[in-house]
Structures are given as structure tokens and as C-alpha cells.
């Protein structure tokens, strides 16, 4: 197990190196070069030349790439051109918000998706199944940001059931411990703060959950159908095992392997979806940082987000591979 993890981690390195090369090339191909991009409106020929010297852009390309690598490896992504703050500090502060939102969305998608997909498969071809399948097709086709605004308009503005934006009401006196608003409320036993954070979480999480939910339902349904038709399920049934045993031990366990892969792949979608959802709900997480970076062309921040986003994605997929071994004992890690 440990050797497998180590080997996979080593395999990640060339991918990350290539990615860094890509980002490096990306930075160099910025309009007018990095210097004028970093300086923005303040760019003058003298300043560009000076910054080029400071940034080492007058050095050979290979030297530049090496320096870039060393800098990035030590966690130095430069300072944001918007706030003047170190990018990594900004990201660290925004991260809990996005993790909270993504986790909530993932929980909704998994908790609803697996049973829905399972039930749809059981009633294959009946109205319930057809409705579910059509629903999933539409779910994937709805632009996330439109759904976000729709939810906000109906449930926040018109019905007033949920707050329209933000993570916590201003008048709630919440203590910041971990940065996870709901968790902090629990830790400090400030239940009103927790509840308030939770009510803020509902609409964005639902908006963000739709696409992963639709995907999980479809994969679960297809996978369960596949397993239901297999010989060992027929055998289990004919042995006279109770339906619940067949369901839990034979069908679900075997059907969940492709589903777990899909859940891992959703993390990328969640990250992308968070950019859109956070903008709609003024969430103040990674997505908000990214949207701001795009609007104001904050390249150091963009570059850091791109590299870290890919790193998270790669690591999550490693975790998914590991989870295979737990779900399916037949899978030997090697």
C-alpha cells in the first residue's frame, strides 16, 4: 500500500513539471510580456526594463525556468496585483470557504445521487426511470450560473427563505477558528452562527451540486443495471438470499466502483463550478479570487490558482485510486 502511494506520488512529478513548464510558457506569452502585464496601467518603457531586470527576464530562458521552479516549489507565487498581498496567503484565507461549499455540494450529489440512480435502475423503463434520466440530461445542460441566479431570485429574493449572498450574516457574532463557518459554530457552541452559515450554504450548494448529481445518478444507474444483469446476482437471488442482502452485498458493492471514479472526477467540475457559483452568491472563496483575477488580469494570482487547482485535482484522483482497494478487494494495488 505504502509503496503504491509512493510510486504514484513519484509519477505525479513529471506531470507537475510539465504543467509548470506550461504555466511558465503561458506567463511568457502574455501580451507585452509579464512585466507589462504585472505593471498594468503603470507600465512605462523604463519601468518595464527595470522590472525585467528585477524579475531576471534578461537572463537565458533555461535560467529563468529554473528560477521560476525554485520560486514556485518554495511556495512563492508572488504578490497579487490587485491587493498587493502574497498570493498564497490570499488563497489560504479563501480556501475554507470553497472547501465548505464544494463539500456541501458533493454531499448533496452523493447522498441524493446514489439512491436515485439505484432506484431508477430498479424501475428501468418505467415512468420514474424515464423522468430521472430526462432530469439528468437537463441537469447537465443547464448553465450553472443561470441556475444559481434562478435559485437566488426565487428562494432568496421572492420567497425570502434563504439569504441571497455571502457566507454569514453581518450581525451574527461568530468566532473564527478554522475558517469553516459551519464547523466553527459547532466548535465554539455558537449554534446560531452555525445555523446561519448553514442557511447561507443551502442555495449555492444546491446550484453547484446539480451537474455532479446528474452525473452520479447516470453512472450509478448504468452501473447498477450492469450488475443486476450479471450471473452472480441471479445466483444470489436463486440461493434465496434476502433482497436486502443481495442489494447491499452483491449489487451495491459491485456497482459502486465506477461511481467512486466518477465522484473523484467531479472534483474538477466542482472547482470549475465554484468559480461560477461563488460569483453569483458573492461567496468569497477561491472562485471569487479567480473571478477577480480574471477581471483585473491579476496574473500572479491566476498562475497560482491554476497550478494549485491542477495539484489538488491530481491528488484527489490518487485518493480515488486508493479508494478502489477498499471498495473492491479484487483490485490489487501495484
Amino acid at each position: 500500500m505504502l509503496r503504491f502511494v509512493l510510486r504514484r506520488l513519484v509519477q505525479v512529478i513529471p506531470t507537475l513539471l510539465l504543467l509548470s513548464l506550461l504555466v511558465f510558457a503561458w506567463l511568457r506569452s502574455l501580451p507585452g510580456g509579464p512585466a507589462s502585464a504585472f505593471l498594468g496601467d503603470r507600465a512605462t518603457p523604463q519601468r518595464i526594463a527595470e522590472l525585467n531586470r528585477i524579475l531576471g527576464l534578461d537572463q537565458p530562458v533555461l535560467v529563468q525556468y529554473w528560477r521560476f521552479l525554485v520560486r514556485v516549489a518554495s511556495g512563492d507565487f508572488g504578490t497579487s496585483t490587485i491587493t498587493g498581498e502574497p498570493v498564497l496567503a490570499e488563497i489560504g484565507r479563501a480556501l475554507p470557504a470553497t472547501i465548505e461549499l464544494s463539500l456541501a455540494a458533493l454531499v448533496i450529489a452523493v447522498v441524493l445521487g446514489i439512491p436515485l440512480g439505484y432506484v431508477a435502475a430498479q424501475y428501468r423503463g418505467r415512468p420514474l426511470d424515464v423522468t430521472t434520466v430526462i432530469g439528468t440530461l437537463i441537469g447537465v445542460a443547464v448553465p450553472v450560473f443561470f441556475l444559481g441566479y434562478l435559485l437566488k431570485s426565487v428562494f432568496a429574493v421572492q420567497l425570502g427563505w434563504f439569504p441571497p449572498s455571502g457566507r454569514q450574516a453581518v450581525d451574527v457574532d461568530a468566532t473564527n477558528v478554522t475558517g469553516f463557518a459551519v464547523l466553527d459554530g459547532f466548535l465554539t457552541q455558537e449554534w446560531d452562527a452555525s445555523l446561519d452559515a448553514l442557511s447561507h450554504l443551502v442555495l449555492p450548494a444546491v446550484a453547484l451540486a446539480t451537474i455532479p448529481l446528474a452525473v452520479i445518478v447516470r453512472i450509478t444507474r448504468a452501473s447498477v443495471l450492469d450488475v443486476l444483469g450479471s450471473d452472480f446476482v441471479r445466483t444470489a437471488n436463486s440461493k434465496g438470499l434476502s433482497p436486502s442482502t443481495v442489494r447491499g452485498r452483491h449489487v451495491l458493492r459491485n456497482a459502486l466502483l465506477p461511481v467512486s471514479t466518477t465522484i473523484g472526477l467531479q472534483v474538477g467540475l466542482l472547482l470549475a463550478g465554484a468559480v461560477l457559483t461563488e460569483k453569483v452568491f458573492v461567496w468569497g472563496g477561491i472562485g471569487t479570487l479567480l473571478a477577480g483575477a480574471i477581471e483585473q488580469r491579476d496574473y500572479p494570482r491566476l498562475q497560482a490558482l491554476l497550478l494549485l487547482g491542477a495539484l489538488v485535482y491530481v491528488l484527489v484522483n490518487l485518493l480515488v485510486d486508493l479508494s478502489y482497494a477498499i471498495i473492491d478487494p479484487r483490485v490489487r494495488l501495484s
Partner: protein
Amino acid sequence: MTVTWAQRRKARLDDLSAGRSLTSEAFRRLRREPAAIAGAVIVGLFVVVAALAPLIAPHGAAETFPQLQENLRPGAIPGPQDGFPLGSDQLGRDFFSRVILAAQQTLLVGVLATLIGLVVGIVIGTVAGAFGGWVDTLLMRITDVLLAIPSLLLAISVAALAASPSQTTVIIAVAIVGVPIFARLLRGSMLAQRESDHVVAATSLGVKRSAVVLRHMLPNAIGPVIVQATLTLATSILDAAALSFLGLGDADPARAEWGLMLAQAQTYLDVRPALAFYPAAAIIVVALGFTLLGESLREAIDPKGRR
């Protein structure tokens, strides 16, 4: 959908009258699939509307009307009235005409982006799959890196490179997202082809290598890629809409395009929701059409589905 005994027998008899090619059999199955028909009808309808848009739309996309503009206030946008079946947009233009004309622009972006991604992906996949060795390793490493970046994030970073956002940058950004997917898919099925009997036969008959690759391997390997392209059309349109929403789309307000219209309409959602609903519905339905078509295509060409 219960299949009667008579239908099943007929299907078997059909199969027994052998000699059907994979393609013709796939089409035969497609014609019986309601989802495929629905998808084809939707896509066909949108293509017709897009092609005839200038004839259907009574007004131009950028044309403003004083009779609409004078009723334009913060908090009020004129609704449907004589000559303007869907009312005004936020700038006093004919909303109906814009929705119709947008079909052209939106499909253009989606189709061009997918096509560019497809062509580049096919070239990379063919080269990797046909040559193998270090070329293959190198190309696949690069596609792996591209795949390691969540797709919208990749599109965003490409689009953000442009000094000023335009339709071209959106198309290129969305196209790049598709490249690694197409390349990987094609390379996989090319590898399977390399070992197959007909390729070995062609090679041993002394057919030139380029001919083996282009005439024997590629046509047999490209099926899954075409299916993926159909599905990618849907995501391309959605990705382009997302880029518009983030302010990375074409900034030209005169251009009618559903993603851009939807993004702009968010501000007026509480004033006149119709401004958001029509473009949103159009995007959802057209994406649904491509998805239905792609999914049924996938099932139709799947050899496991042959019965």
C-alpha cells in the same frame, strides 16, 4: 418499452440476413431509438433556425427602437407589444430578433470550437497511435497534463491570455479543452487497430505505412471520437456561455449570442426574467439535443450493443 416476442424474432431475422456493415447497422438502430430521433429533430431545428435566422428575424441585432427606448426605465423593460413579440431588451432592441439571430452565433462558436479541437486532437491522436514509441509517450504526457487541469479552468486561463476578449479567443479557449480528450480517445482506438488482423494483413501486403494509417486504421478508429465530438458540442456551448458570464467573452454588445445575452440578463432577472429565460432555454434545449444525439450514437456504434 417492452419488446414483444415478435419484435425480437424480427430483429434476429434481420441480423441473420448478414452482411451489414457496422455503420449501416448503427443507423438502423439509431432510427428506432426515440432519444436519437428527439436529439436529431432538436439539432435539425436549431440548425435550420440558425441558417435562416436573418430571414426569420424581423429586425437587426443591433437595431434600437425609440418606441421601446422611451419606455425603458430602471426597474421596467417593455414587454411584448405590436411588432415586438417578445418585447424589448435592456437597450431597447427587439428581443425576439436577437434570440433568433443568436442561434447563428452560438452554434457557430460551438461548432467551430469543437471542430478545431477535433482536428487538432485527431492529428495528435493519429500520430501518437500510429507511431508509438517516444513520440507517443511525449504526446500523451502532454495531454495528461492538459487533462489534469479542470476543463473550465483551462478554458479560463487560455481566454485570460488575450489582451481583449473576443469571439476568436473564446473559440480557441473552448477548442483547447477538447484537444486532449479527442487525442486520448483516438490514440486508444488506434492502438487497438494496430494489432488487428486487417491492419497486419495490409502491412504484410506491402501497403505504404501512411496508407495503412490513413485508410485502414483511422477510418476504423474514429467512431468513438465522432461520438465524443457530438457530446462536446453541448459542453462547448455551455463553456462558451460560462466564459461570457465571467467577462471573458466577446465584449461587443451588438453581437447576439445566447451565452452573452444570458450573462447580461442576470442584472435584470427581477425586472424582466424573460430576458434570461429565452436564451437559457435555448442553450438548455440545444445542449440537450446534442447530448441525446451523442449518447444514442455512442450506444449505436458500441459493438457490445449489437444483437
